[in-house]
């Protein structure tokens, strides 16, 4: 795929817009349609496009497996951690009202962080699934162990 000039140029051109749109969907989710899940899928689609055009090697240099693994865990921790923070400052679990000086600000901040957590985890999981299948395909034949390669 590396030799197709048109694809490479178009992919490079598209990349910032995909990322920007991802950010828009991520942080606009509390006002309109969107949110962490959708944004995570858009981000991941960007990375997958990059991997398709420029190869798995380059893509995994951008997002090494260690970072992906960290991202998967971090997103869940962020989500659950927001809830625990609410407990500690005197509210119910995931009661964002207590997070800031007033309830409206609190709700705003709370949902922003929670959705960010969702976005991080969804991006990481999607890219990880893609990498795992793609690598499995590449190494098929000499990999006797089948799909049991650790993450």
């Amino acid at each position, binding site marked *: 795929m590396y030799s197709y000039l048109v694809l490479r140029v178009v992919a490079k051109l598209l990349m910032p817009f995909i990322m920007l749109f991802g950010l828009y969907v991520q942080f606009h989710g509390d006002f309109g349609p969107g949110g962490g899940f959708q944004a995570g899928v858009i981000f991941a689609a960007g990375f997958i496009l990059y991997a398709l055009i420029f190869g798995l090697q380059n893509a995994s240099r951008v997002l090494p497996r260690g970072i992906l693994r960290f991202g998967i*865990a*971090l997103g*869940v*921790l962020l989500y659950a951690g927001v*809830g*625990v923070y609410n407990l500690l400052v005197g509210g*119910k679990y995931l009661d964002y009202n207590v997070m800031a000086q007033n309830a409206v600000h609190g709700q705003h901040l709370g949902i922003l962080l929670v959705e960010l957590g969702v976005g991080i985890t969804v991006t990481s999981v999607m890219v990880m699934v893609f990498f795992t299948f793609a690598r499995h395909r590449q190494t098929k034949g000499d990999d006797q162990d089948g799909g*049991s390669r*650790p*993450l």
Partner: protein
Amino acid sequence: MTEHLAALQVVIPLICAPLCMLVRYRDWSWIVALFGSWSCLVISWLLLQQVMTGGIISYHMGDWAPPLGIEYRVDTVNAFVLLIVSAIGAVVTPYARESVRAEFGVNRVYLFYTSYMLCFCGLLGVTITGDAFNLFVFLEISSLSSYVLIAMGKDRRALTAAYQYLVLGTIGATFIVIGIGLLFAETGTLNMADLAERLADKPLSRTIGAAFGFLVVGISLKLALFPLHLWLPNAYTYAPSVVSAFLAATATKVAVYVLLRFLFTIFDVKLSFGVMPLDSILLVLAVIAMFAASAVAIFQPNLKRMLAYSSVAQIGYMILGISFANVNGVAAGILHLFNHALMKGGMFLALGCFFYRIASVNLDDMAGIGRRMPWTMAAFVVGGLGLIGVPLTVGFISKWYLVLGAFERGWWFAAALVLLCSLLAVVYIWRVVEVAYLKPAPENAPDIEDAPPSMLIPTWILIGASIYYGINTDLTVGAAKLAAQQLLGAG
């Protein structure tokens, strides 16, 4: 913090799961899991105490009031099931350290603890929630992670077993969500207490009838009621030892709880057992499960598979108790949840000990094992006595209340069938005893020690508990009866 116990019950394992993934060094992730499971045990114990003295606990997630917000609702029924699940988790985790190290590649140990904590979180969530859709979400969390756990088995057939479970489990989950969707269409609410109230006012419509059908079939698939049990034997046989023990003692139990919740709390008893002929359907299926699965168990060369079929039969006992739809019968069903979790969990752990030493759980390889691994084999035999229902074991207590329930209902033949089915259990347990104690060990058998203490002690805790609660029944029978009264009274 005590008012937040209901939330923490689910949140602690939810946080432990990603932590297990972050601290990749194997013992660290084990320590995280150990912390998670033990603190959950403490929480569930405190919750049960609170419920027994203070009545129902209702926790509003995010401070959104039900029925719109998600409510966690703890009464005696689910407090008891929470205690079962977290107690099994707390016993299995210390055992897991050695066993997982031996059965997994070192690189994959942390993945095991991550999925294990997620599964634990899902099972606790299913049990504690008071919201029908939330229940479905947690059911999916626990199911998806249990597919992963089963697929981690060393045997390559674990993959097909997990896949088979995935397909059937997904069909079950789909049926459940269709049922919940139909109820939502009919009533406009997802909160269980609210659902029960609104359904009580409505005449039986086709929508409610269809929802009832979908839910019963979907949940029956999850709890492996005959003839929907086909996923279970393979899944338990090829899963890693720890996973077999954990799932056998918790996953199907939680599904039985869900069935109880829907039949008695959400739908009216009059609908479940009066308008719908569910009592005779469950009775017939339960009896077939007891006999067919016990009979199949007798002919299994692989002991894990034998115990898996025996589990199908024991689930038959629980469903039989529920089909009586009276206090003694339902109490026997709930009691057997607890008792069977102890016995079967302990026996699967004992098999894990054998696997740790001789790398096989086939009956042929176990000749003379009773003398080579005396403590492990003794645990297995005591658990087996419980399955048979010998007095002074928990199995006897369950069967006693089952028989009482049968007489109360006037189904004396069911009582006779329970006793008759115990004889089949005698046969399959005796097969193992005969090979393990009466056959000489092969000449070339390597010298082996008994299992390491970190595995033997958890096994004996469960087996010891199965004796203790066979003698001292205050806690179990008390809680089960109270739970049954609440379920039937609410209906």
